[in-house]
């Protein structure tokens, strides 16, 4: 049987529980009665309860079936995912909220991620499935969230904290605009397997794949050469040809960026900025990464005003003060020398120590 082309996604209207169909566009306000629970109240007085649980994003079909069984038992079969890979069970019956939470906790689900908490870390594929990873994704996320679990299941942070992880410096996901971004970094140019190139790589495409023009044809050798000074270690050439290996186990690792946000509330959306250029890939639990993130988090908790996102706090006190307070070493690696570097230079004589 031939597939139907261009029928588009399933219609969301078939996925909405009756309480949402009845109150669509009529929601009046919401509250967070306890960590992990949102209560949305409609103009009609109807209340919808959403119970939020974490997932590892990479899940088996049996996990989804387990979740379906719970949604059938407590939510008349309706649930949703969030953009941050959490599940929200949608309940119209308040009396079922606590029994659901008790069942979830008994089954080992993590309930939380609401309000002034850490939500799930948006992340990429890493060693599980990516072809140019500089680090794993799921494993680092697991290690970091195990360490910060208390801040997922409570709401005791100054404000919400959104984190992202990208497994290489193409920065898929949302690391460039997260409160804390964890970015896998390669630090060495690709290694060229000239035999492999001669066997089957189309050289013009390989040359064109390099965003910085660092790859040149080498007609004498029927291969290519890499101008190492121009290479930014993105791995795009490896995507084009497996003859350009970018991984380097001894030199790949992780950089930490902080202070990004996408919301317009109070201050303009902003990018995250690098504060640690390199930490080692110490699998399976990445202790250097979890310690560094916890230290930044605790500094923010101790110093920020109520409601102040991580980046808002740093901007208020000044980045030079952040480095003084955190004790993180400041180096030339943290000073931008890419295309838009100038806008980060201090063009005034007023600053702190």
């Amino acid at each position, binding site marked *: 049987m031939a597939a*139907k*082309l*261009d*029928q*588009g*996604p*399933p219609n*969301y209207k*078939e996925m*909405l529980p009756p309480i*949402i169909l009845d109150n*669509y566009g009529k*929601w*009046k306000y919401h509250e967070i009665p306890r960590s992990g629970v949102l209560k*949305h109240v409609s103009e009609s007085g109807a209340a919808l309860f959403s119970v939020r649980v974490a997932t*590892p994003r*990479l*899940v*088996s*079909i049996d996990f*989804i*079936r387990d*979740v379906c069984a719970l*949604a059938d038992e407590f939510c008349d079969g*309706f649930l*949703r995912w969030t*953009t941050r890979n959490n599940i929200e069970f949608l309940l119209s019956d308040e009396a079922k909220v606590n029994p659901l939470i008790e069942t979830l906790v008994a089954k080992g689900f*993590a309930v939380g991620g609401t309000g002034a908490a850490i939500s799930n870390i*948006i992340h990429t594929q890493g*060693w*599980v499935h*990516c*072809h140019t990873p500089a680090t794993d994704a*799921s*494993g680092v996320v*697991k290690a970091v969230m195990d360490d910060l*679990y208390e801040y997922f299941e409570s709401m005791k942070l100054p404000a919400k904290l959104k984190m992202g992880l*990208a497994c290489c*410096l193409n*920065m*898929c996901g*949302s690391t*460039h*605009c997260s409160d804390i971004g964890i970015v896998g970094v390669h630090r060495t140019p690709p290694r060229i397997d000239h035999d492999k190139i001669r066997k089957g790589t189309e050289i013009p495409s390989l040359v*064109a794949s390099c965003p*910085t023009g660092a790859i040149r044809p080498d007609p004498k050798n029927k291969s290519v050469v890499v101008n190492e000074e121009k290479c930014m270690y993105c791995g*795009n050439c490896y995507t084009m040809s*497996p003859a350009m290996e970018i991984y380097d186990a001894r030199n*790949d690792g992780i950089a930490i960026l902080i202070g990004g946000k*996408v*919301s*317009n*509330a*109070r201050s303009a959306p902003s990018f995250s900025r690098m504060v640690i250029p390199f930490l080692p890939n110490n*699998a*399976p639990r990445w202790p250097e990464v979890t310690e560094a993130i916890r230290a930044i988090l605790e500094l923010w908790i101790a110093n920020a005003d*109520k*409601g102040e996102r991580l980046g808002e706090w740093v901007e208020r006190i000044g980045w030079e003060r952040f480095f003084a307070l955190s004790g993180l070493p400041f180096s030339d690696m943290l000073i931008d020398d*890419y*295309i838009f570097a100038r806008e980060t230079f201090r063009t005034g004589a007023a600053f702190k120590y």
Partner: protein
Amino acid sequence: MTEKKTPLLDELEKGKWPSFVTEIKRAAVKSAASAELLQVLERSYEERRGHWKHGGIVGVRGYGGGVIGRYVDEPETYPNIAEFHTVRINQPSGFFYNTKTLRTICDLWEKHGSGLTNMHGSTGDIILLGCKTEHIQPIFDDYSEAGFDLGGSGSCLRTTNCCVGPGRCEYACYDTLEACYNITNEFMDELHRPMWPYKSKIKFSGCANDCTGAIARSDISVIGTWRDTIRIDQDAVKEYAANKFPIQSQVCDKCPTGCLTYNNETQELAVIAEDCTRCHHCINLMPKAIQAGKEKGATILVGGKSTIVQSAFMSSVVIPFMKMDVEDDFEEFKDTVRRIWEWWDENGKTRERIGETIFRLGMGKFLREAEIPIVPQQVFRPRANPYVFWAQEDLDKSGTALDGTAL
């Protein structure tokens, strides 16, 4: 299947956060491919490197995307994952599901693939992780029969995504769920048949909180807003005051424009309408007392993307306010994005996102040629140099050239 040890991965089954290793192990009970994935991953943990190669195949007849080719680098050692491709299934708006739909997704994937998924990929799709080349067309045929379609990959309109919108949020300034659904269906060719210089993304956020990260993560960012003034319910303000909510310090003092004043005597809030930038802070903190104005719509911003190639860009304003009405079938939006894409398709270099094309050729040129009205809301401040590229044909060229001939 012989039981192989994974001591490093086992470390990631400890701790309170849900474990992806446990999930791969669950899939491995039923799938030889998932069992081999576990072995390759354990090796990656020992060697601290990945073991995958990219391939260009995109799979199904009539489409140019929706499948990403993935191959293990030692097919002889790991024959079950020699081919381990990703299939992207276009998700329903807002990630809402009924359990029947989810079970269908699971049953079909159990029949054809590894049993591993991502719920969801960063762009929004349901990700089916790991299948053989020969299964791609049957997978699509079966999912198609069950009412699903593939998402985007390659140089196309990528799968669009939206926030929870009016389905469950009082902040939604337009119907993000319907916009996402309707507009996705409008642009099926653009989604399924990649024809552009590079990828293009649209994200729909219902308010300035931008829960989809549209401004930083999409080429065309549709962010809900209103044109008139916030509405204040003074009785509700008094209730916040009665509950000792710190209105002055948490709301007024943090208002970026200082347009909100609180009278402690009367316990009333006042707004200077023309000073308000609609940042949403006060509404976030006092949702029972403050709400958006009545004239709702969206701001359209263009150019957002992550770091590759020319640094990360935030989208910037091109249309400060546009009605996003279901009744009009979102016609104004559709016409506008068609003009925007046409300009980019004509002017963009290969692997150049639209933000980069605009940066290279100039925002003024883009706005003129895409026929978008030019207004001060598009910039923070005007240029600080005199280097205007004047349109020569508009200037007075009557006079004499150096050689004495008339111009």
